[in-house]
């Protein structure tokens, strides 16, 4: 266990620990914005929406080349479908009075249903390569390679820079979108940008650590940070710290102790940080009424 904590438990352990930690650091602040925007589970909808994209990409590729399975093609299909899913959520909300969670649930189930329809069509085709189509792109933390870690590092750097540069604008749409719109801010475009950040996190996360861990990394550290502060800047920093620490500790535990699946252990580590924060953090006491500026999320 000590070996693992010091990154000397072996090559794979070191790569996975660094990659997961970077992803945790990047996902934390993105999660904070999603949480305040009441879109905590948008990542979940985006992830589920990849299925019809994968199936369609498989079919198109099959039609064009006679071979369905190709990593870049399926990845492009998945990414495009996830983006469409996020746009669909945004469009549903903008054009109706459906709440965020309802729009997310509609897109999640409708898109995944389309994917299942596609799968049930593909199974009637006399082609190989369809086995495991739904899992083909989904990664596992323990299977992280150096290239994955580099990709995560790159995306994380971009996310951090964009958030730092546009912090003021993002804060405005996070806390008071009506005021922002009235004051002439391009709320729609900023929203699109925030969703783009989320999308980047989801696609990179899905392929390197899998669905449940990326959803957890976007929610749990952000929720924990919100127990400690109401200031957005601090909240984002704390979420990054919590995300990084839980990924690091979870991965180390999974490297040091047998039969601990890495991604699941990271989720449990993040949950432990939340559970510890809950009784001692200043803002979790029920008596404190939320202020007008910072509504309950």
């Amino acid at each position, binding site marked *: 266990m000590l070996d693992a904590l010091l990154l000397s438990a072996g090559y794979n352990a070191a790569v996975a620990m660094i990659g997961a930690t970077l992803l945790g650091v990047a996902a934390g602040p993105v999660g904070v914005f999603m949480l305040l925007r009441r879109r905590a589970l948008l990542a979940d909808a985006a992830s589920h929406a990849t299925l019809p994209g994968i199936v369609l990409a498989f079919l198109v590729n099959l039609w064009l080349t006679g071979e369905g399975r190709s990593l870049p093609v399926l990845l492009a299909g998945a990414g495009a479908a996830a983006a469409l899913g996020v746009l669909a959520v945004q469009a549903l909300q903008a054009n109706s009075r459906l709440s965020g*969670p309802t729009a997310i649930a509609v897109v999640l189930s409708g898109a995944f249903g389309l994917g299942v329809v596609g799968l049930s069509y593909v199974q009637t085709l006399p082609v190989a390569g369809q086995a495991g189509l739904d899992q083909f792109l989904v990664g596992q933390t323990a299977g992280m390679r150096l290239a994955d870690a580099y990709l995560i590092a790159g995306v994380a750097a971009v996310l951090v820079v964009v958030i730092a540069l546009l912090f003021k604008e993002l804060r405005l749409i996070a806390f008071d979108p009506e005021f922002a719109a009235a004051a002439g801010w391009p709320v729609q475009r900023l929203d699109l940008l925030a969703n783009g950040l989320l999308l980047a996190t989801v696609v990179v996360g899905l392929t390197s650590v899998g669905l449940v861990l990326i959803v957890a990394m976007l929610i749990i550290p952000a929720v924990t940070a919100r127990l400690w502060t109401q200031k957005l800047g601090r909240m984002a920093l704390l979420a990054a710290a919590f995300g990084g620490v839980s990924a690091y500790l979870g991965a180390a535990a999974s490297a040091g102790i047998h039969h601990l699946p890495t991604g699941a252990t990271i989720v449990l580590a993040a949950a432990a940080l939340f559970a510890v924060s809950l009784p001692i953090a200043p803002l979790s006491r029920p008596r404190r009424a939320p202020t007008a500026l910072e509504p309950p999320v």
Partner: protein
Amino acid sequence: MNPFLAIDLPALLIAIAASVACALPGSLLVLRGQALLGDALSHMVLPGIVVAFLATGRIASGPMLLGALAAGLVGAGLIALVRRAAKLEASAAMGLVFTVLFALGVVLLETEAARKVDLDLNHALYGHLEAALWLEPRAWSDLAAPSIWLTAPRPLLMLVPVALALAVLLVLAYKELRLASFDPDYATLQGFRPRLIDFALTAATTLAAVAAFEAVGSILVIALLTCPAAIARLCTDRLGAHIGFSVLFATIIAVIGYNSAAQLETSGSGTIAAVGGLAVALAVIVRRLRLRVKPPVASPGNGPNTAVRPLRPGSA
């Protein structure tokens, strides 16, 4: 053999029963911003399945159902707890709890006993709409005999009582539910206990969802909990009408979806879910065209359209 009686009738009846069982609690969940409970439940059942296997040493639908139900209830309780303790929006609390419970299930899967066994949720719990053949009635006239209905496929025998029980509960607790949904503060003043009602609603949803998971699989349950209620939400501001419309739309979506699946020769559950999603999109478009007004520029993200009276309680 009449293929309609053997294949389509049971599938349609199960789809309709699942629609009613899901649309009843779903209509309230959508009003309360808890539409994602179905998705959360579909993940939270995993540790229940694994524990049921570890405890009984077998993969049988009885223990699996009970395990799933228990895990669902524990998860629903934790969601309520986390929501209150951390003052969280419902879906954030759901995201937290479902990922943690699912992770717990994944850890349990790597234990020595479970590692070698295929405890895939699709194998252990989730069912398929089409697989419920009913071979006993050989002619339409056979259906007149009450005793033949006892031979109906088990998902139907399970979902119909669940749907009926939910309907009765809803009627009995209608007033409380309405107050708790729209005006929790007033409800508390009146001596009602919104938290208790909240938990009763989640427990009822868990029961309906787990029963329906076993009958039709997870994706259709998530769709039926949400899509019909979302369309109803666009049609009316009255709670009674909202619930009624939800059930009506759920049934229509189920029938249209099943028929499309039969024509396309695709999965029934997947097709109904996809039809549900498309129906919501269609409803939003039709409504926009009918209103013939530009949407308010404000809050493209979360706010309710100011052209209609906001109905969501408390949190807007």
